[in-house]
């Protein structure tokens, strides 16, 4: 992965792959949830990981959070001194705890990810006790107040119960919990998709603030490209378990090269735009494909069945992610240098 030299690498995924065995004794198959995914995340950087449901983006987050072990490929994490260690080499409990404290996760559903019978301070204090055992009870309380302040809740909220909080406030608690362990990278799996559009922006602003003021990197998993553009520095687009395109977000959005990126962008509703023409609507309704369930795939581009510009090669060889312009694209047609205009 080509990186601008100013960015220090924090985490790198190399040909990360995760397969799941599915089916019974007679219908064994292998679901390729994530296949050969490579990317890196730098310090003080928000990287958006976008794709349809089922594209494998949550599986990537779980691989990074060590919920799953990769079937093959590695994740390398670079600590403060720049020492890189692969996640599979983190054997001891201490090394594992240290990693999960520095790379915590924020979950999608703020309604089910907080325990309803405890005050919201519970999760933060528990995390502090576990990950920063050097703190006294008073210091833990003070630190909890500090992180609540950072996420815009105020220390008075610490003693509330989850049901007293709105969805947006609960998700802020999620970020406060992550922040308590002095993270370097937060894995945020669709953190705003369950919230009302009117309060999403507040959370996105919070994520930008964490990057700018606390120096935290964030992997922002989303299917909402517009919100990704609002906060993220780089964009990785996934399709059917593979990376379709990645690069600096403004470059990708200004000139998407992969047909799937173009489809994704064309589908974003824009209230300020004039209503689409009847031809555009007709063209869009012709587009009824669905992302494939990748079970025992054959070689070839996985987007081909939905792709209007595919060539013969696409059905035979799986395209590799290769540098193109400011980013990287996995598309045979784009890699020939031809201008791809699949969806507008």
């Amino acid at each position, binding site marked *: 992965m080509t990186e601008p030299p100013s960015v220090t690498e924090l985490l790198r995924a190399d040909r990360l792959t995760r397969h799941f065995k599915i089916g019974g004794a007679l219908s064994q198959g292998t679901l390729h949830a994530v296949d050969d995914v490579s990317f890196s995340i730098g310090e003080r950087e928000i990287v958006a990981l976008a794709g349809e449901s089922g594209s494998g983006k949550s599986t990537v987050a779980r691989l990074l959070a060590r919920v799953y072990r990769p079937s093959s490929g590695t994740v390398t994490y670079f600590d403060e001194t720049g020492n890189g260690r692969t996640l599979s080499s983190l054997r001891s409990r201490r090394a594992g705890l240290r990693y999960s404290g520095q790379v915590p996760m924020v979950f999608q559903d703020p309604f089910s990810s907080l325990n309803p019978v405890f005050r919201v301070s519970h999760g933060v204090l528990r995390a502090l006790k576990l990950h920063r055992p050097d703190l006294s009870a008073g210091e833990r309380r003070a630190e909890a107040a500090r992180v609540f302040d950072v996420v815009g809740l105020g220390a008075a909220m610490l003693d509330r119960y989850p049901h007293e909080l709105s969805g947006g406030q609960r998700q802020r608690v999620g970020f406060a919990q992550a922040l308590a362990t002095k993270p370097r990278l937060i894995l945020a799996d669709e953190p705003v998709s369950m919230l009302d559009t009117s309060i999403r922006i507040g959370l996105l*602003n919070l994520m930008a603030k964490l990057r700018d003021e606390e120096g935290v990197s964030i992997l922002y998993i989303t299917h909402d490209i517009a919100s990704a553009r609002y906060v993220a520095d780089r964009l990785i687009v996934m399709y059917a378990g593979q990376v379709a395109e990645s690069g600096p977000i403004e470059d990708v959005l200004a000139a998407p090269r992969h047909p799937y990126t173009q489809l994704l962008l064309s589908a974003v*509703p824009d209230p300020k735009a004039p*209503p689409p023409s009847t031809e555009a609507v007709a063209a869009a309704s012709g587009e009824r494909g669905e992302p494939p369930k990748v079970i025992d795939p054959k070689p070839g581009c996985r987007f081909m069945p939905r792709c209007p510009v595919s060539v013969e090669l696409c059905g035979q060889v799986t395209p590799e992610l290769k540098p193109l312009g400011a980013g990287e694209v996995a598309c045979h047609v784009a890699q020939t240098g031809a201008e791809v205009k699949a969806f507008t």
Partner: protein
Amino acid sequence: MLDVSSLTVEYATGKNPVRAVDDVSFHVDAGQFVGIVGESGCGKSTLLFAVAQLLSAPAAITAGSVEFRGQDLVALSGRRLNAIRWQNLSVVMQSAMNALNPVMSVGAQFADALRAHGMSSRKAVAARSAEVLRLVGIDPVHLKSYPHQLSGGMRQRAMIAMALLFTPDLVIMDEPTSALDVVAQRSLMTQIKELQREIGFAVIFVTHDMSLVSHYSDRLLVMYAGQLAEAGPTRRIFDNPLHPYSRGLLEAFPSIKGPKVPLQGIPGAPPDLSIIPNGCRFAPRCPAKMPQCETTPPALLDREGVRVRCLLYAPASGNAAPGEQAKETAQ
């Protein structure tokens, strides 16, 4: 076709009943697409349930009427309602994942509804089921499929097919696209619009995502804290939102085109409906708040076809003169 006037729904909880829908009036003409937007807890789903007469205790309609093709649904008995439901008026629920029965095939669920409304011939049931499934772009082989075998988008389309079994006059949809990603969402919206053009039913579409209805709805109702904040033709509200709340909702969207601008969204949260503030319900979050907003509840005013509940548009004398008040039949 549908005329809702002064509809009020209360949840009887403890001492103070919570008024989730407060004096809401609107109407839907045949073939129209009406969008209802607002944040969670603004009463939009309760309003839908009240229109479809699906409320269950402790919620109850305490005032107002829902006139559908000349009949007041509020006063109808359960039996008479059953005849109208699904035949003339059908509902697509929010989460198809939960609304379809997981242990019955799609076809069996279709047949169940068809038989309940008097279609007894097995052949006719099969033919009609296949027909509606084809309408929404699903291969009729999926009548034998179980819900878990369909993708999220297909399940949602199957729900819509089910609502169309009897070619109803009105289909009520409660956030049908909220579980879908953008590509599936757009394909479903264009499909609803196409079907509407072909078959001619009217749609009431509830969502919290204002950008979604911008291109599809004819008229828009913006709800806040149980009341209508603004209502009128969709394009006019998008081009020139009058209520500060509508403006806030519209400005809460980052765009993928044009310059990147910092956004604020709408800070704060909607009020607790069991403690209704004295003045305007939006005042605590309003960027255009005036001193009188704290004390004077604004009336719904008619501004050349757009109804808006905001003191910014009240005549200078203070309270609106009776003649200025929007009538139920406005627009």
